[in-house]
């Protein structure tokens, strides 16, 4: 058994478990529904199994490294450290849930082979980003993600979705180019790109503070596009025209989270928070994240389109991660890292709920949701739970994140972070509570008979909501996102 979970090729198997089904599905005829579903589910389950093995290994202090030489001096490196595991576990679990949801959501619609093929590739790229062991490997998968996601955004082929796709590509390709420039410059300066806990640039290029600061800005600006850091967030609210499962994955695991995870890697494994603070870039980034948190929430207030309101909420919530990691000290880092998982669980639930409302009752606007709690009690219960999490009420996952972020901010001597968090809580309450009030307390217009979403849509929604609740309710349990994040922080700062 021990040999099994210390197998260093496990990271590769994690990638292949979605890559291979993706390729096969691309070659399948549209009518092979059963085989396609079988491949999808088999891949998703296999990925969870491999990730589970890796998680067991990492929890026992094993670190995975797998290298593959592309050409002399250029290697693809996959690693499995607690940080990678935090992200890859999230993506593996949510991939399975979203696949089931997507099967139900797209039932009977055209081009499903294309959709599921790119869906699998998108997840492969995300897993690659999570497991990347250096900046080169990182950007390979990062760019792959850009292109694997495009067909999903324009899937419906309508004018609006094509426009969203164009805007998405314009933003992300520009961002990718800036990121590449930063990486090349960094490589010319340091001669190495491999991730090291606590950063490597200070040791590899001593005395180059000014250049390194500029490179940091390039890297973060490139990554900030996908992470929707204001003012680089413009594509995200437009991209919500994509089908619900795509939006869900986009906001919870794939694109937005890939950008945020990249920022975490840059701060944590390339620069080190101490050095980034020393040269003055980390505090700037924390300020930008704080601004993004408030700005996103303020914009969310006035959106009547439910998915758009959720999209602006993502702009705000994802920056919690950046804020935490850009703040000095173990507690704030812990808050940022754990929010990587918590935000994913909560936000995917909310987008599933929005999808359920739109698919089952054609309800897309907040103002149409009067009395909908009676018609779809389970969907709205899941929505309510996750919305409370976003507000940060105990015992939800969102509160755990907020607790560590706030405590960390205070301990780092940055009490303004508490003000930002509290302000964000108030704003979140201001745009989520009216929805909850409408759903449960306002008299229904027209039809009031109970009519829940199809079980293929409902069950994934409830599963995601259950995970979001469990992540907070059992935060102190031996295996929880908080504990895995704690492991990562302990590697850097000591237990």
């Amino acid at each position, binding site marked *: 058994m021990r040999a099994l979970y210390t197998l260093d090729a496990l990271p590769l198997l994690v990638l292949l478990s979605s890559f291979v089904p993706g390729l096969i599905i691309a070659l399948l005829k549209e009518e092979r529904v059963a085989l396609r579903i079988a491949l999808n589910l088999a891949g998703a389950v296999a990925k969870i199994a491999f990730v589970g093995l890796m998680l067991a290994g990492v929890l026992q202090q094993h670190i995975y490294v797998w290298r593959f030489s592309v050409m002399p001096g250029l290697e693809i490196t996959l690693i499995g450290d607690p940080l990678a595991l935090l992200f890859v576990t999230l993506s593996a679990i949510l991939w399975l849930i979203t696949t089931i949801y997507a099967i139900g959501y797209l039932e009977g619609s055209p081009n499903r082979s294309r959709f599921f093929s790119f869906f699998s590739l998108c997840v492969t790229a995300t897993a690659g980003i999570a497991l990347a062991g250096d900046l080169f490997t990182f950007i390979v998968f990062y760019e792959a993600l850009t292109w694997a996601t495009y067909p999903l955004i324009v899937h419906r082929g309508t004018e609006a979705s094509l426009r969203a796709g164009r805007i998405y590509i314009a933003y992300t390709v520009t961002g990718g180019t800036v990121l590449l420039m930063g990486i090349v410059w960094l490589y010319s300066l340091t001669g190495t790109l491999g991730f090291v806990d606590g950063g490597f640039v200070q040791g590899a290029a001593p005395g180059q503070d000014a250049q390194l600061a500029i490179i940091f800005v390039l890297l973060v600006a490139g990554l900030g596009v996908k992470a929707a850091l204001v003012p680089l967030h413009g594509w995200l609210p437009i991209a919500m025209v994509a089908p619900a499962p795509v939006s869900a994955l986009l906001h919870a695991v794939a694109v937005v989270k890939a950008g945020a995870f990249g920022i975490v890697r840059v701060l944590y494994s390339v620069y080190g928070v101490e050095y980034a603070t020393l040269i003055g870039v980390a505090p700037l980034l924390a300020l930008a994240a704080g601004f993004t948190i408030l700005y996103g929430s303020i914009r969310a207030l006035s959106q009547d389109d439910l998915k758009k309101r959720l999209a602006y909420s993502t702009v705000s919530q994802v920056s919690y991660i950046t804020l935490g990691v850009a703040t000095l000290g173990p507690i704030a880092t812990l808050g940022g890292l754990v929010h990587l998982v918590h935000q994913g669980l909560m936000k995917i639930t909310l987008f599933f709920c929005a999808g359920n409302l739109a698919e089952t009752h054609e309800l897309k606007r907040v103002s149409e949701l009067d009395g909908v709690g009676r018609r779809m009690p389970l969907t709205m219960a899941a929505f309510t739970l996750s919305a409370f999490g976003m507000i940060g009420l105990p015992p939800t996952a969102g509160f755990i994140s907020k*607790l560590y972020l706030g*405590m960390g901010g*205070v301990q780092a001597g940055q009490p303004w972070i508490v*003000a930002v968090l509290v302000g964000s809580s*108030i704003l979140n309450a201001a745009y989520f509570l009216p929805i909850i009030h409408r759903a449960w307390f306002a008299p229904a217009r027209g039809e009031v008979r109970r009519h829940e979403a199809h079980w293929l849509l409902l069950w994934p929604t409830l599963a995601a909501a259950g995970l979001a609740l469990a992540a907070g309710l059992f935060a*102190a*349990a031996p295996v929880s996102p908080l504990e895995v994040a704690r492991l990562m922080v302990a590697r850097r700062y000591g237990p």
Partner: protein
Amino acid sequence: MSLAPGSAAGMLLVIAAVAWPASLALAWLVPVARRWLGPLVQTMALPALVLAFTADAGMELRVVGLYTSLTLGVDPVGRPFLLLKSLLWTVAAVHAATYMREDPRRSTFTGFLLATGTGNIGLVLAHDALGFYLFFALMTFAAYGLVVHTRTAEALRAGRVYIGMAILGEALLLAGLLAAAGLAGDVSFRTLPAAFADFPRPDVVAGLLLFGLGVKAGLVPLHVWLPLAHPVAPTPASALLSGAMIKAGVLGWLRFLPMGELALPGLGAAVMGLGVLAMFYAAVLGVLQSDAKTVLAYSSVSQMGFLATGVGAALVVPDAAPLLVLAVAVYALHHALAKGALFLAIGVVPARALRGRISPWLAVAAIPALALAGAPLTSGAIAKLALKNALGELPAPWPARVDVLLGAAAVATTLLMARYLATLRARAGTDDATEPYRPGLIGPWAGLVLVSAAAAAWLPAALAPLGELPLATQPRYIAAAAWPLVLGVALATGTILLGRRVATGRLGEAPAGDLIVVAEAAVAAARRAGPPLRALREQVPQTRIARWLARVAADPVDRTARALEAATTGPALGAVLCVLAGLLFMALR
């Protein structure tokens, strides 16, 4: 029987006290289980009640793995609160079973009642800040369902004000909690208060916590939601809101603040000032109300003034804290029982008017009213004496003036209670009055009146772990308690004889919610001012010079108008944030 600290039975009881209402609430979520819940709902607070009567003190257990790990237990400060909450919840749940019998939304009511009860009982047992915050938030948000229960326009407005103020409170509390947790590193109530001494600005952290909790405790000027929300809820829920839930804020004060550890003279004096203000301000506004429930809600604000004064005093003089904590606890217990009984009477007494004479019923309803006014030999006399003795420990000007201050406040309370009885009488023949004879309504009410009336006898024993209560039976104490009552009754009688207007409920009225009504009017005025100001610009004649003038002169007008509108459409969040950020900076730099 009493349970030894740390005994297995005690631990099980601690868990059951929270888990039983929580399980009922969870069972309620399953539609099929709902119909079996009926009689069980009335037992929701029974384990807590048994625990309150049997647990002496010093019981604590840690639930590891759950949440951030939860510490639950009973201690000397928590016990009187557990007693008052479990008593009130039991009585109200039994009362509600009959009161809500024909209500079309009774099932929804039950669900929110169970969830609110879980929060309210859980927060008494929580021995760390995060656990307290968890149950506090559960109670706050679940109680929204009780406030808006009737879904009338009035209830929805009260609900909006309630939730707005609740979020303000939660935000301040969260800010204080994060600051305290970050600075102290440990959030157990046993260590947290002592840690304040090492904070760079303990008064700011304490202030955030104090005002955050003060929203729930009805601290003036954060009380505005209370006269709106307490009356619109169904009567048993009103009794809980005003009797039991309001005390959650007070318990929070005793738990979070560095009572007896650290002197915070500025903050303490401010809270004492607000407390004294509340005693009279709320009493005056309360006398001007014509609805019995609103009168009682204002009376709660006024009574909370006594508690705020005690808490503020403990911050000024840490040495007096043990006596003050005792006084606050006994006052809270006394007030909860009396106020609960007064509210439940509204569901009982007016109905009796149809069946014959109302006077004997009014006389029974007057028993807790007398207690609240501090009549001799009642629980109120003991509570006020305890507070008076404790305030006597304060520096120079206070001991001499405490007698007069508390006496004057008791006169105000007496007037308020006279007003309550008058409105109760005036209510005969209206809405609630059509209820047929219902032992399920009279029983719990009469029981609570009895418990409240007998409180003078059993309070000293119940509070023994916290300290020894003064005996209020000496003649000089009886005289001291009697004069405000006599004066108040004389004043009330005089008013009746002069005008007979108190009795008919037309004394002249003040709008319920006082400050919030002013704020709402200001917002409405600002909204109305916007469009006409902008229209001014279009009325300018269309010559070139006039247009130029219009641009120069009207732009600022226009901008002002827009700014006014903007300030009133969104929450005044920017201001709140700036203040918060500034406070926190001061706190921690």
